[in-house]
């Protein structure tokens, strides 16, 4: 699974995409968030973290499947 990164998450990871190769497959958005917070403690310290699947905000319970575009959405600050 490849994840698009923006803003502070891009800086924390150090690249604009993150290839995720967990030992066990990550099945849901919530599981992805938990895995990321473990791998990158700085991500766990953000004031909030959302995940977008195919460019829509996704609930923690949403299933992840191959072929989807997955992106991390740290707290937005446009405008």
């Amino acid at each position: 699974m490849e994840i698009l990164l923006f803003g502070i998450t891009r800086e924390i990871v150090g690249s604009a995409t993150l290839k995720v190769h967990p030992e066990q497959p990550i099945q849901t958005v919530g599981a992805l968030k938990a895995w990321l917070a473990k791998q990158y403690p700085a991500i766990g310290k953000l004031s909030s973290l959302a995940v977008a699947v195919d460019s829509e905000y996704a609930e923690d319970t949403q299933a992840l499947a191959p072929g989807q575009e997955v992106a991390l959405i740290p707290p937005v600050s446009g405008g």
Partner: protein
Amino acid sequence: MLIKIVEEVDLQEAYHYLQDPAAGGIDLFVGTVRNNAQGKHVVKLVFEAYAPMALKEMQKLAAAAQQQWPIEKLVMLHAVGEKLVGEPVVIIGVASAHREAAFTASRFLIDELKKTVPIWKKEFYEDNSVWVNAHP
């Protein structure tokens, strides 16, 4: 509706698009780079967008505004990249038969844009920089 993510937002482009024979009131909101944030002197801002999703989210807000108020024309333009103090970053525009709807819908669109549209702002001060809203 005219919804774009661009290098430079253009007020004339927005106004030109909003002109409509059925409109009696056009409200334009321009968000600009302020020289001060939480008491710190701002040197510049850098904006980054997840463009495909940001456009989708802006379109959803525009559709929600059109459902709530009688709107003739609607514009949402947001810049990305480096912006200096005084430069425009975002333009919201609403043309309506009456001014009430134009003001209220503009206000709604900029308020909601700041909450949900995946765009990020990094503020650069004289001695450091920070991603706005990232930490509690």
